[in-house]
């Protein structure tokens, strides 16, 4: 017997639906509907009490009208009345109406809740099911308040029917998602975990969904679920499919449950218990093996379900990121799917590979598929798939293939779907910058971007190219020449005019010697574009002109004529008019010296996170820029920044516009060196309970520390309140460090107390002396602290600098901090303001006490041989974290403190250095040798000193630098 026989149901409803379907026009349909609405309204309001059947019929009609897209503003009360009926049919339609039509903040919710309460208490499984469904579908806070305590009891009660348990689990999950604070954890949690052992697979599936979400927030509470999930999974994966009764779907045993269990396991690191871990590995291997077996059915459902499990297993392998063997197998499997004829599989394979690319074990393996992926970009018919291919190319990009990938993306950009162009532009811009070894390539790439997709090149992108050109003098001449050539195209994008105008205004002099690009030609070329441009671009060009007046006195009169023309001086746009007037005046009254000062070349921009990256993150959501990538970027940041990088911080603030105001008139003075206020409050421990407790090291402190190994001056730390700068000098075994504390706010810091913290071990080997500083630091002021340093013996650790102070102004503190934590009445000492506590590692390292020693090749090798005891030598082979640039490497070795010995090593590509570490007790001779392998992007660093601990420490410090 069919479950629903066709003739059943309500005739009135069927007639109404047929009428609607026969309507010839939208108007007729609306007319019919209005007639029906009027009819129902009158029936509802009429004197005669309606019986349940009629109510049901009318509610069904309303539902249908609603689904056609019409507003329903009555009938709610009738639906609520149906809830209290004892007939299943009526109750059910009432609940249906409410689930679909009642929004969560309806006034009726109290009545509805009452009916639900009765049904939950009815012990009738059908009614309980309906009530639970309704709670889950509406899911409002009021419902959570009313039932969040009740549902866990139903869920774990011994006598609850399976189907009700299932519904209760999901209902609770839904309430937890909308109002997690209202779902109390308690005794029931451990009993829920044991539902993973339940006989009924439907119950297990629902429970797994619930536990997965709960475990994400409360991992400790649900830790025991790992071993249960593994054993359940193992029973499914290895069992003959007949064991699972109806939960076998097209010969695949319980695919949904397997997927859910694999998801649950992704909330946790690999199991610690070797037995559990072994069992899980076995499961994953079995799943991978099954993928290679011939299919048990030709039906697409079979392979679909099988692959759903497979993809989830691969996700888990990637999540654990700990078994190189499994990772490589996963990568190979995905590689097969990349060429599969099923589009869905190609799509999913590209998606999973993206995450695989960020694992260090499999990054190389993913790279081998580059041809397939670029091919997908060209041949896939589906934009969803192409989008994934772009993402994957972006993820697999590194120094070795950046040029190829950027070229592929650029050529794809010419035909790319409009919807994804902007994203590709951002990605190309980021990759070109990140992996630029040769900045001429970078400049070419960005200009190409503007040429191909100028409309999609956002401000961030062209601001960035200008920042980079300004900061790197080796590329300025090339940039000027290239933009000059690009501008000669008869039609060029306005963005190119902006970049061209800015760069020629700064560096036009570098190409002015060539008669083909003489000052006048440059000016005429730019001015020929002027009238086609928008106001902001024209404003920028006017600034370029005044810069030309300074750079090229010979075109001064020409430019003055242009500025003087009516179209400038009387321009309707106030900004343009003002610029024209001011620039004209400036060029007339100012002496050459003043002009030269006012119109001086822009100072370098402070190094900071590319605002393009911030934009991409904003566009794609933070999840797409993975942590690993973040980490990679952090490490590589200073390479491209040159030898004097400022600390990179994960900042989302966008770069201030270098655009219109080349002069910096009216704008803030050139930004101080250092990162912009970073995401800030994180770095400051405002939660600390006791004012004397030392905050944990600020995030990024390690990185900043490493940056000071090869240099002595710079910004050590910065957040939105405080900046710490360092200047230090060392001679023999002595040193002096100046620490500058800058108050970046406009109000005072009180009880300002910096403290140097050394472990006992360190104190024995390194003596530090300092005087306390004034406990008050005025807004905007800087105080200085001198630390006298003496190296007694060689040491490994670094001292920690802890700073504690109070700010006057609570508003300065990151707003994400809940205000009740700042103003806790239990901590009266905080009333004066907010307590701040910051710790950073102070970069006093052993190599600071190096004195370089020059020696000839012969001497070097003689000493090298003398230090051949195994404990005297420490060697480290490591991957290059930064581009392998000879000059930068040399600068770093010298900055490290040793002498750089030329023509010593027979292989000219290698670097050797020598020096003496001075301590109070002894002097230690050190020799070092660094062998780069460009092909493998690896280094081998060898240190030989007369003391094992010294070799060890120097090797650690220096390895972090390349």
């Amino acid at each position, binding site marked *: 017997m*069919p*479950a*629903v026989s*066709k*003739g059943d*149901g*309500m*005739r009135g409803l069927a007639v109404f*639906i*047929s009428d609607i*379907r*026969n309507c*010839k026009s*939208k108007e007729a349909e609306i007319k019919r509907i209005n007639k029906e609405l009027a009819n129902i309204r009158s029936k509802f309001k009429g004197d005669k009490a309606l019986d349940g*059947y009629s109510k049901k019929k009318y509610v069904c009609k309303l539902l249908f009208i*609603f*689904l*056609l*897209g019409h507003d329903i503003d009555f009938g709610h009360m009738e639906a609520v009345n149906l809830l209290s009926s004892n*007939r*299943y*049919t009526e109750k*059910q*339609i009432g609940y*249906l109406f409410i689930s*679909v039509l009642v*929004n969560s903040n309806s006034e009726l919710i109290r009545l509805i809740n009452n009916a639900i309460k009765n049904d939950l208490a009815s012990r009738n499984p*059908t009614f309980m099911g309906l009530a639970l*469904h309704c*709670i889950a*579908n509406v*899911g409002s806070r009021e419902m959570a308040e009313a039932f969040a305590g009740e549902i866990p009891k139903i869920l774990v009660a011994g006598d609850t029917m399976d189907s009700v348990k*299932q*519904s209760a689990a*999901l209902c609770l999950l*839904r309430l937890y998602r909308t109002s997690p604070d209202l779902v109390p954890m308690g005794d029931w949690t451990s009993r829920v975990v044991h539902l993973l052992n339940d006989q009924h697979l*439907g119950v297990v*599936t629902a429970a797994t969904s619930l536990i*997965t979400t709960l475990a994400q927030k409360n991992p400790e509470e649900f830790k025991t679920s790992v071993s249960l999930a593994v054993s359940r999974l193992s029973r499914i994966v290895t069992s003959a499919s007949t064991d699972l009764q*109806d*939960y076998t*779907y097209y010969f695949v045993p319980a*695919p*949904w449950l397997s*997927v859910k269990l694999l*998801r649950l396991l992704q909330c946790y690191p690999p199991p610690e218990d070797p037995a559990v871990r072994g069992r899980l590995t076995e499961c994953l291997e079995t799943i991978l093996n099954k993928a290679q077996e011939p299919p048990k059915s030709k*039906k*697409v*459902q079979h392979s*679909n379900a099988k692959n*759903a499990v497979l*993809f*989830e297993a691969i996700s888990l392998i990637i999540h654990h990121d700990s078994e190189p063997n499994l990772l490589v197998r996963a990568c190979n499997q995905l590689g097969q799917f990349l060429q599969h004829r099923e*589009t*869905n599989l190609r799509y*999913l394979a590209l998606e999973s590979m993206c995450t695989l690319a960020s694992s260090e074990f499999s990054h190389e393996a993913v790279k081998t598929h580059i041809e397939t992926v670029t091919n997908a970009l060209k041949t896939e018919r*589906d934009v*969803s798939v192409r*989008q994934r291919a772009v993402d994957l190319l972006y993820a697999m990009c590194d120094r070795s293939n950046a040029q190829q990938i950027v070229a592929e993306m650029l050529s794809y950009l010419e035909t790319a779907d409009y919807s994804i162009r902007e994203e590709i532009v951002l990605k190309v811009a980021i990759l070109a910058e990140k992996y630029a070894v040769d900045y001429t390539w970078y400049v070419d790439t960005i200009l190409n971007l503007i040429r191909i997709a100028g409309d999609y090149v956002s401000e961030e992108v062209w601001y960035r190219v200008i920042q980079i050109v300004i900061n790197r003098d080796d590329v300025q001449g090339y940039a000027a020449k290239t933009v000059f050539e690009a501008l000669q195209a008869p039609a060029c994008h306005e963005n190119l005019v902006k970049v061209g105008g800015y760069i020629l205004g700064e560096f036009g002099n570098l190409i002015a010697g060539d008669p083909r690009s003489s000052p006048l030609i440059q000016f005429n070329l730019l001015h020929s574009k002027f009238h086609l441009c928008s106001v902001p671009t024209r404003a920028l060009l006017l600034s370029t002109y005044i810069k030309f007046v300074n750079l090229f006195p010979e075109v001064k009169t020409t430019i003055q004529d242009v500025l003087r023309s009516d179209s400038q001086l009387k321009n309707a746009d106030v900004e343009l008019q003002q610029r024209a007037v001011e620039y004209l005046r400036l060029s007339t009254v100012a002496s050459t010296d003043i002009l030269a000062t006012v119109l001086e070349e822009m100072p370098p921009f402070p190094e900071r996170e590319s605002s393009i990256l911030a934009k991409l993150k904003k566009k794609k*959501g933070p999840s797409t820029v993975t942590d690993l990538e973040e980490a990679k970027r952090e490490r590589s940041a200073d390479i491209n920044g040159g030898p004097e990088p400022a600390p990179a911080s994960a900042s989302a603030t966008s770069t201030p516009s270098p655009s219109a105001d080349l002069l910096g008139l009216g704008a803030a003075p050139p930004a101080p060196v250092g990162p912009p206020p970073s995401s800030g409050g994180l770095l400051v421990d405002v939660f600390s309970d006791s004012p004397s407790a030392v905050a944990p090291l600020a995030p990024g402190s390690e990185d900043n520390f490493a940056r000071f190994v090869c240099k002595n001056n710079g910004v050590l730390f910065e957040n939105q309140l405080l900046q710490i700068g360092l200047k230090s000098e060392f001679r023999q075994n002595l040193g002096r460090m100046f620490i500058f504390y800058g108050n970046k706010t406009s109000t005072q810091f009180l009880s300002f107390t910096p403290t140097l913290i050394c472990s006992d071990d360190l104190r024995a080997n390194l003596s530090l002396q300092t005087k306390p500083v004034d406990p008050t630091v005025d807004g905007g002021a800087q105080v200085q602290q001198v630390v006298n340093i003496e190296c007694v013996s060689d040491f490994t650790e670094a001292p920690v600098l802890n700073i504690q102070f109070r700010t006057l102004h609570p508003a300065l503190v990151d707003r994400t901090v809940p205000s009740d934590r700042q103003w806790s009445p239990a901590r009266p000492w905080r009333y004066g303001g907010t307590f701040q506590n910051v710790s950073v590692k102070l970069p006093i390292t052993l190599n600071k006490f190096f004195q370089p020693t020059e020696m000839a090749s012969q001497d070097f090798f003689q000493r090298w041989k003398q230090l051949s005891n195994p404990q005297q030598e420490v060697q480290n082979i490591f991957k290059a974290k930064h581009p392998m640039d000879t000059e930068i490497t040399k600068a770093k070795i010298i900055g490290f403190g040793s002498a750089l010995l030329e023509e010593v090593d027979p292989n000219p590509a290698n670097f050797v250095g020598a020096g003496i570490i001075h301590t109070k007790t002894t002097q230690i001779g050190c020799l070092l040798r660094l062998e780069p392998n460009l092909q493998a992007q690896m280094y081998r660093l060898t240190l030989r000193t007369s003391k094992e601990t010294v070799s060890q420490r120097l090797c650690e410090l220096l390895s972090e630098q390349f």
Partner: protein
Amino acid sequence: CLCCDTWSTVQCDFQSEDTQQQIIRETFHLVSKRDENVCNFLEGGLLIGGSDNKLIYRHYATLYFVFCVDSSESELGILDLIQVFVETLDKCFENVCELDLIFHVDKVHNILAEMVMGGMVLETNMNEIVTQIDAQNKLEKSEQIVYTGLFCISQDFSQAGLAGAPARAVSAVKNMNLPEIPRNINIGDISIKVPNLPSFK
């Protein structure tokens, strides 16, 4: 997971009716212009809650079944779920066709409610779902007998609800409120092709 199909908006968190209709229209627009042989996943636009959400759909003859899901669900798993849904409909309606879905919106809802609850996957085992639906029908039947009794007494009602006119009297199928589609296409009784129905014993 948040889910809807083109026939019924099951669950759209915090959306007004207008937005729901707009979502349905745009979704239909997006999905219907896609070729065969492309993948069954569509990146989410802003309308469906941003890039974390995806549209996952299956196309059966003239019908699209579209689910909107967040990243907590497996894509292929949802494709299978749609298949189970359609197979279940086919079992419950005996060779289901579009008209069944239009004339029995409430029943379709019931079936879907057995599979998806509050936007989360509740049950995937077809036999289990069909058993539940059967039980509901039995309840309904038993209650209708009570009605007949009532009707006999009041004499007011025709036999409404017992024998009901055959729903297939209407030959024109109209898409709900989707002006992009030519109105009144006569497609007769094309039933949904459920590929390769296996025997569930």
